[in-house]
């Protein structure tokens, strides 16, 4: 096999995965789960930097957010599924899974399909066509997190594998 594979990455994955993407997703996962461990009232939660951070990327609606001892997490049930599973799936796929380029269209297609499901369910909830349970929201988030991790792993796979 020829090519300029980075020797620092024994699995053939780009170092960006280990040094940037994985720490970033881990950071978001930890922050999303952290408010109940640092705050004891809704006011503290409302003023917390964790809530502020996620307020740009999640609606944080209280009736759609899991709570621990009465304190909401920093992200809604769907987002908590995404952020929780993303670093785990990245680690699993990067250790046990190297993707051939020919698999790319299927993974991109899978990502597009799961994204569509999440968008349709989110929009239907928003426009009150139906109301999903928190478990359904969590599961759609988990599936989307897995699909995103797969997409990132193929993106960060050296092309000569």
């Amino acid at each position, binding site marked *: 096999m020829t*090519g*300029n594979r980075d020797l620092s990455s024994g699995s053939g994955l*780009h170092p*960006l995965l280990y040094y*940037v*993407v994985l720490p*970033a997703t881990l950071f*978001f996962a930890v922050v999303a789960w952290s408010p109940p461990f640092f705050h004891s*009232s*809704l*006011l503290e939660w*409302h*003023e917390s*930097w964790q809530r*502020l*951070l996620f*307020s*740009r*990327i*999640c*609606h*944080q*609606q*209280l*009736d759609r957010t899991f709570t621990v001892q009465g304190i909401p997490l920093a992200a809604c049930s769907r987002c908590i599924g995404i952020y929780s599973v993303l670093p785990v799936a990245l680690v699993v796929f990067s250790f046990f899974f190297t993707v051939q380029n020919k698999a790319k269209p299927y993974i*991109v297609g899978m990502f597009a399909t799961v994204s569509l499901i999440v968008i349709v369910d989110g929009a239907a909830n*928003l426009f009150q066509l139906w109301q999903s349970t928190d478990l359904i929201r969590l599961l759609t988030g988990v599936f989307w997190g897995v699909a995103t991790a797969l*997409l*990132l792993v*193929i*993106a*960060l796979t050296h*092309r000569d594998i």
Partner: protein
Amino acid sequence: MEPDQKKSYWSASVKAGVVFGFVVFLVSTIGSYITIHSEPTGNLLSGTILASLVGCLIAIFGGVLAVKFYINDYGAEMKIGQGAVIGLMTGIVMAVVSQILALIWPVIDGAFIENLQAALIANIELSQQIPDAQKEDMIDGIYAQFQNFYSVGNILQGFLMGVVTYGLLNVLSGLLAAKFMGRTPQPEL
């Protein structure tokens, strides 16, 4: 041999960052006006929150547009890491632009902050999701949040949160764009 053209990420990042920073601000401001002009229902999923969510979904594509601009300028040969850096820089520019515009707008519409504050508080007062005992605390929190709108701490915090969220999201979209739109540079022989 052709002279080596110095490749800069700035041009692509600034162009895409300014465009998307403006769009994010626009969506967020429209959402705020929707909240202001809606009857309070007690639903905490207000136009403001929804707009920031939609704005964020749009913002992810900033990194993609910046990579597209870079490819237009210098050709499709690029490494994934370059896409990530372009995405990060775009996210930072986007955070700066949207933050500056968000600070300027209340000067143009002098009643903006007061009206938004009143609308958010009215929604909290009618909310079934917050225990009565905690409503007063939440309302006090909102007052404090808007009173400190122009404080240095609040501005820096907003900027930092923007850099972290838009920066990291655009790192991901930038590297994905580089992977799917770019071409790996061939090693020189």
